[in-house]
């Protein structure tokens, strides 16, 4: 997966058009993009969309709310019948990955889905996550890739977001661990000026990342080109 485009799962028009941007994967976000009062509406909309629309051209990835919140389990149980390819595990640590896998065991059994078919993509959002990335990957055979969120990682460190040099250690650690474990590594979304995207994606690729999150549809073309 070269590009993973993030979209708001509570917007019907975006759900309809998500396959048209040329992204390899679409990350349907139930967490940061959706207001607290609309979490129920978003997961219902997403599962109906997954049933109704043809997403066979892309990898369908769903980002639920943090496992530390009650919405996490509801997100997984509600959306799993729509047969997404993967769920993100936010604020990833080994326990959260195990819990996510257990919820999916239950959801797959209840919905007559093949066991273990829905995969997990832990999101490394903290310093502890970076340090334990190998253990996170090893926590479940469902893990198929790891995603990196630089903004949350730097916030956890208490460092002000600046340039790519701040991320060298974390990126290297994640990319190397993923390579060793044989799973894909998906770099953080880029939020700076448009003309800096190619350089940022190139920096991640140089450290071994296999793909990158696209913050919007306009970034997809550049990311696909860098990771081609």
């Amino acid at each position, binding site marked *: 997966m070269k590009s993973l485009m993030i979209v708001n799962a509570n917007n019907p028009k975006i759900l309809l058009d998500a396959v048209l*941007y040329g992204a390899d994967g679409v990350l349907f976000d139930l967490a940061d993009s959706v207001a607290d009062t609309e979490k129920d509406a978003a997961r219902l909309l997403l599962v109906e969309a997954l049933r109704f*629309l043809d997403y066979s051209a892309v990898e369908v990835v769903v980002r639920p709310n943090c496992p530390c919140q009650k919405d996490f389990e509801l997100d997984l149980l509600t959306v799993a019948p729509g047969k997404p390819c993967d769920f993100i595990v936010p604020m990833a640590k080994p326990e959260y990955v195990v819990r996510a896998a257990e919820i999916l065991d239950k959801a797959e059994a209840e919905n007559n889905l093949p066991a273990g078919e829905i995969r997990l993509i832990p999101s490394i959002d903290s310093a502890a996550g970076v340090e334990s990335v190998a253990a996170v990957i090893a926590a479940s055979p469902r893990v198929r890739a790891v995603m990196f969120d630089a903004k949350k990682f730097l916030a956890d460190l208490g460092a002000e977001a600046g340039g790519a040099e701040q991320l060298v250690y974390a990126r290297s650690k994640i990319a190397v661990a993923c390579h060793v474990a044989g799973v894909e590594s998906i770099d953080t979304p880029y939020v700076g000026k448009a003309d800096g995207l190619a350089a940022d994606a190139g920096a991640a690729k140089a450290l071994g990342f296999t793909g990158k999150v696209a913050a919007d*549809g*306009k970034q997809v073309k550049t990311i696909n080109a860098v990771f081609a």
Partner: protein
Amino acid sequence: MKNVLGREFPDYIEGYGQVRPFTGAFNNYGERATVGTKRRSVKPAHQTPPAEEKLCRSIDEVFDRIGVRDGMTFGFHHHLRNGDYVVNLVMKAAAERGLKDLHVAATGIFGCHEPLVEYIKSGVITQISCSYISPGPVAKAITTGLLRKPAIFRSHGGRPRAIESGDMHIDVAFAASPTCDPYGNVNGTHGPSACGVLSYIFPDTEYADYVVAVTDNLVDYPAPPPIQITQDKVDFVLVVDKIGDPAGIASGTTRVTTDPIGLRIAESAAALLDEAGYIKDGMSLQTGAGGASLAVAAFVRERMLAKGVVGAFGAGGITSYFVQMLKEGLLRALFDVQCFDLDSVKSAGENPAHMLMSGSLYGNPHSRGAVVNNLDIMILGATEIDLDFNVNVVTGSDGVVMGASGGHNDCSAGSKIAIVVSNLLKGRLCMVRDRVTTVTSPGETIDVLVTDRGIAINPQRQDLLEKLQGSALPLTDIKSLKEFGENLTGKPDAIEFTDKIVAVVEYRDGTVIDVVRQPK
């Protein structure tokens, strides 16, 4: 009767007349006569008493000197677009005089012309003919059958043809004139209401019984170049406070869409043109000014630069994009019927290679050869398209008038390849239908449909299908696009219409291609 596209209407339509049915896009050519004109000669200045000078200070003076009466046809151009004051000013004065049964033959009607609705209701206006109409109050009045006679929609080439042949006689032409001298020399690119070329009014200035230049910028004789309407065509010069609102006339700069899906549609269209061999030295190009159509020009430009191609000309409504391509030497000339932004107004006034063309030169099929005949590539929009590639730009799928032919059927007929670009779904509506609500351009003149969900090529274009074999472009067929769309939207319920014909859609040659009936 039924025309060749299976569209049904009476042989004789009350308020329109005897119908000549559409028989095919390329069947109606040959020798054609033009109608005679009347004009009143003017003595030399030293022989002309002040009361007979061309310059008039009030619209009533103009009306008195012409002797306007009930039932007349007034011609107007729409180069002031949604900032036009002239149509309203003239029709208000006509209403105040108690005139009735007037025919407004404006080349375009916009939202700013809302006051006409009152005059339609009161019978001051009983007929409208136009080449363009924007969705709005007048379009609604037409749809709901308020006009006593059906509106007539003619293309930009069809209107001059109708005037030259005598099908439509203009009694008085009121030409909004951004700069004018007291003897009637008109310049369109200067003055507070500068709008660029005045192309659409030329048949009126040639064939109307009376021509009135209406200006808010009277200058000393002679008006500065380029003079577009010369004094020998103009009977009267009327000075008013303002002919238009600059904010509504031309947008600052026309911009290409930034919507990634619109850009992908445009990129596909440009790639298709390249693969099919249309991007080459001497090529010519026209696009609509809509965001997605215009984006095709931007991608074609990139491919021209990459290949080192120099094109012959760009045509039609001109935007800053075409002006840039002219300046860069990517195009040798522009043929302009309408300036869409300030850059094109400026260029039309300065650059001799940025040439004005009249509506007749642009698209009249019964001239000695219109510019559309020399056009390679045409990029178009569409409200609906059907399985036979017939296009509708006149009504929504509920039968409500929301546009008129513009240059659509002139350019699709003239160009070597006519490509419609559009999103497949517009809200809950799929633009590919079993049968379009109203035919504007016949399918035999439309070659390709490029959508966000795939590209369909008209099966009549076997040559294109062969050239594109093995292409990586998302080629499909139009039926599959319709089925894809209907799987999402559901099959639309049929709209019910009354028998009342509210508008007649003429093809560019004057035959009737379709009619618009009043929806129930």
